[in-house]
């Protein structure tokens, strides 16, 4: 295990990455892996040449706009589009009454345009395609809709009650198959005996935590461009995180439109931020397809910022009832969690986040007895979606806030409490996760050391320290039947390596990391690698950029393909160099004999020999990598990921008792990453994640009043600016995972998972109040301080 960040960046660690060859020559182990290589697309981006969906124009292209509901729950009595249709420049007007039925979403409860009834303010009612976006907007204003308002429900606990307004009357649940707002999802996990453990615990803490909606806030708003060819095959220019699954969704839509056996091709432009928001397909995409088919012209839809805030799906809000107990010595005995999630009016992946919330619930720290249940409830609010961390930031806020409370009850320093209960390599958790590598103790120790924990904790003088930890999938996550990703590699005459990957780069740097892995495996340099990841007609299949799986799964896939190409190269080289392939290796674009490094040949020469020889061959290979992980079984147990990633964040805050303002004085983020393939990009993930987490903790909330988003702009939605963000110190713990490509584990999401509880714990240490409701705004802190004073 190596650890850096405590000393310097990577300079100190490169010296340890040396290997001695058979002939005793000391050489660096890696040429490409572990290097701070700039992102491959950075030059395009700093010059403004990168093409985003907003920048794309196709001759004859029309602009689509969408009309949304004016009510959160209402019958549609009539829609009159005649005036809109006669506006010059308008090429098509569609409503839910003149389109085929296309059902989409995880629960297939959503349609592109709603007929008969609307269930939320973001319900799409009509759409216009016009030659100009202003004309399209004007046409929307000419559409007359008559509504009959229905009683609505915005509180999931109210929506669960008998007699509550039904969002989808046809939806039934329970043994009696009665109409209900509660979704039929089996989110229940039990291991051990929680009741017995509770009885036998020396200390028990019980609390209710609440977390609210937050928006992804991708700087590039949503959009797409749909185009049909003369054979009615669809090309969709998209910003999806799931090209292969989106292709399947769009193909199903074509079938529903009567275009059976027609092809859907998904081409990605540059993506202006993802964070989970693009893990599903949405109404606007089907609307663009319908408009393009209707008009026989390409149709582009681009969201305004206001639409982006109210018509895309935020992180779900939840009510979390949690109890945990421990022995007199501070060993955790049980964890009991009941959650209610506001599903909103339709169902996307938001309803599946409990399947991942179970991960920290069952497996963050060693807890022998576990009970977890979650209900997802329809309301007339906006519907939720995956967002970075996939439910784990929500539940980790509850778990690791309460760990501090429990430690206090037991009279134990929360640092010691965490160390005592920390996961260890080789553990099998109550959910049957097999922990391979685990650097959690090292993370906790490193954070404590950086914060000077023993000296500064417990002063309650307005300054305080807090920490919190995380577990996350680090080796893919088998949420579908496959967790696979494919890679194709081919080489040209000159040594250029073309890599076609199923992975999606949405800014996190997947292309660069995969190129480093390929270059390392193949013995070339990153600049020799050309990445293609944009087109389902060209690129192999992949289940998408989720679960922090890209470096691990796409990386292993790329490494496998590179290994095959390397073997082919060595076969060809063996002939021309008169050596056996086993004695040959490739390093820095040169094939050499391991026995006699002077016997060598440039790679290009070998490639040309392969191509120009009689009976020649292409240096080309594919590899489909599907990790050996498990779907959760009927009890929702199973080794979801082949390895898990861990981390601890620590923070020192100053709380102004007069204003309730929290100032972050120090922020330390320690992550067990397996191996940092690219420390600079890795730090970028941690910085960005932690910043998003600080916003989640302190400032961000999508305010819904009776189902309506009240702050659909950056003035009122408080995303952090450069002036609000503290310097974040990253500590990288390298545990070199045996399953990871060059030892790497995933790190995309973890950066924001433990942020909110770490800050909550620091606020408690500073001023003695525990905020259990995100975001922890000055108002809430002041109110808690006031309450604390009055109770004394």
């Amino acid at each position, binding site marked *: 295990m190596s650890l850096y960040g405590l000393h310097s960046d990577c300079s100190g660690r490169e010296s340890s990455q040396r290997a001695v060859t058979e002939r005793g020559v000391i050489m660096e182990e890696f040429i490409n892996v572990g290097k701070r290589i700039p992102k491959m697309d950075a030059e395009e981006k700093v010059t*403004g040449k990168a093409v985003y969906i907003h920048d794309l124009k196709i001759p004859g292209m029309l602009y689509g706009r969408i009309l949304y509901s004016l009510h959160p729950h209402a019958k549609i009595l009539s829609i009159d589009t005649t005036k809109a249709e006669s506006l010059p420049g308008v090429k098509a007007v569609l409503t839910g009454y003149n389109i085929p039925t296309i059902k989409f979403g995880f629960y297939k409860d959503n349609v592109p345009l709603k007929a008969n009834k609307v269930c939320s303010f973001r319900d799409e009612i009509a759409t216009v395609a016009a030659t100009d976006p202003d004309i399209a907007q004007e046409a929307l204003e000419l559409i007359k809709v008559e509504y009959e308002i229905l009683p609505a429900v915005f509180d999931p606990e109210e929506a669960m009650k008998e007699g509550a307004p039904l969002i989808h009357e046809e939806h039934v649940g329970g043994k009696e198959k009665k109409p209900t707002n509660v979704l039929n999802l089996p989110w229940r996990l039990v291991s051990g005996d929680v009741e017995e453990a509770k009885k036998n615990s020396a200390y028990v803490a019980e609390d209710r935590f609440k977390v609210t909606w937050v928006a992804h806030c991708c700087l590039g708003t949503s959009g797409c461009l749909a185009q049909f060819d003369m054979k009615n095959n669809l090309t969709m220019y998209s910003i999806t995180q799931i090209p292969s699954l989106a292709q399947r969704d769009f193909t199903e839509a074509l079938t529903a439109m009567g275009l059976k056996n027609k092809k859907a091709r998904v081409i990605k432009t540059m993506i202006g931020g993802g964070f989970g928001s693009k893990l599903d397909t949405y109404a606007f995409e089907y609307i663009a397809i319908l408009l393009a088919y209707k008009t026989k012209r390409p149709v582009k839809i681009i969201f305004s910022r206001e639409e982006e805030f109210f018509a895309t799906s935020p992180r779900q809000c939840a009510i979390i009832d949690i109890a945990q107990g421990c022995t007199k010595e501070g060993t955790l005995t049980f964890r009991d969690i009941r959650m209610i999630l506001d599903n909103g009016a339709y169902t996307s992946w938001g309803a599946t986040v409990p399947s991942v919330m179970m991960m920290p619930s069952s497996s963050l720290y060693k807890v022998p007895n576990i009970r977890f249940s979650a209900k997802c409830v329809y309301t007339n609010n906006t519907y939720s979606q995956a967002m970075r961390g996939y439910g784990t930031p929500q539940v980790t806020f509850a778990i690791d806030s309460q760990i501090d409370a429990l430690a206090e009850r037991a009279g134990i320093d929360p640092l010691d409490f965490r160390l005592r209960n920390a996961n260890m390599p080789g553990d099998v958790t109550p959910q049957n996760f097999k922990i391979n590598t685990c650097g959690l103790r090292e993370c906790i120790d490193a954070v404590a050391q950086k914060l000077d924990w023993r000296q500064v904790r417990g002063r309650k003088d307005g300054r305080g320290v807090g920490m919190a930890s995380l577990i996350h999938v680090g080796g893919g996550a088998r949420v579908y039947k496959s967790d696979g990703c494919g890679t194709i590699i081919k080489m040209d005459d000159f040594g250029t390596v073309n890599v076609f990957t199923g992975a999606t780069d949405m800014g996190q740097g997947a292309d660069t990391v995969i190129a480093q892995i390929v270059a390392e495996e193949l013995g070339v340099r990153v600049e020799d690698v050309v990445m293609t990841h944009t087109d389902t007609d060209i690129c192999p299949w992949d289940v998408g950029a989720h679960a922090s799986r890209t470096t691990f799964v796409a990386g292993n896939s790329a490494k496998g393909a590179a290994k095959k190409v390397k073997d082919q190269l060595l076969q060809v080289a063996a002939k021309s160099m008169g050596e056996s392939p086993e004695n040959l290796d490739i390093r820095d674009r040169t094939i050499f004999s391991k026995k006699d490094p002077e016997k060598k040949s440039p790679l290009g020469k070998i490639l040309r020999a392969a191509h120009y020889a009689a009976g020649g061959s292409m240096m080309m290979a594919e590899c489909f990598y599907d990790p050996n992980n498990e779907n959760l079984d009927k009890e929702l147990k199973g080794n979801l990921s082949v390895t898990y990633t861990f981390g601890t964040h620590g923070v020192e805050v100053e709380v102004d008792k007069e204003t309730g303002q929290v100032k972050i004085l120090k922020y330390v983020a320690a992550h067990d990453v397996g191996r940092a393939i690219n420390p600079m990009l890795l730090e970028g993930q941690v*910085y960005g994640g932690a910043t998003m987490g600080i916003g989640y903790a302190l400032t961000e909330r999508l305010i819904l009043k009776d189902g309506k988003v009240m702050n659909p702009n950056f003035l009122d939605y408080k995303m952090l*600016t450069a002036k609000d963000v503290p310097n974040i110190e990253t500590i990288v713990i390298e545990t070199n995972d045996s399953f990871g490509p060059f030892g790497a584990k995933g790190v995309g999401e973890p950066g924001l998972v433990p942020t909110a509880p770490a800050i909550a714990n620091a606020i408690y240490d500073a001023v003695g109040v525990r905020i259990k409701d995100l975001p922890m705004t000055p108002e809430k802190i002041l109110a808690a301080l006031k309450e604390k004073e009055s109770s004394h």
Partner: protein
Amino acid sequence: MKQSVTFILNGESIQVEIEPHLTLLQLLRDKLELTGTKEGCGMGECGACTVLLDGKVVNSCIFPAMEVDGKNVMTIEGLTDAQGNLHPIQKAFIEQGAVQCGFCTPGMVLAGKALLDENPKPTEEEIRHGIAGNLCRCTGYIQIVQAVKAASGQ
């Protein structure tokens, strides 16, 4: 009725006939096809549409195009020199990992350039103040601050 506007755009004088209600962003992106300038919010809140007007940052999405008459406008496309060499601040953004999804990047680079032109050796606090009008969701701003610092030779 269209009206004529004459201004310097990325070092070259141009004259365009435009509808007087256009924003500078619409002129740049839709009429002149300079799509390096981004629209992130359309309300002057996020800074993705930042361009330099006589060397000062403006949010082009809320700036009337007619008002650039007689003035000097620089967009991200004008920052590289005639040979296509990157400006030092662009190089610094690349080398410091200050770019992720890249949507805020053109505006952020120009905000950084305007700051350095006015204050060649800014403190970290001055850098953070200088780019506070430009939102970024990916980076946490840290590597952006490092890039501006590096471009200033500090």
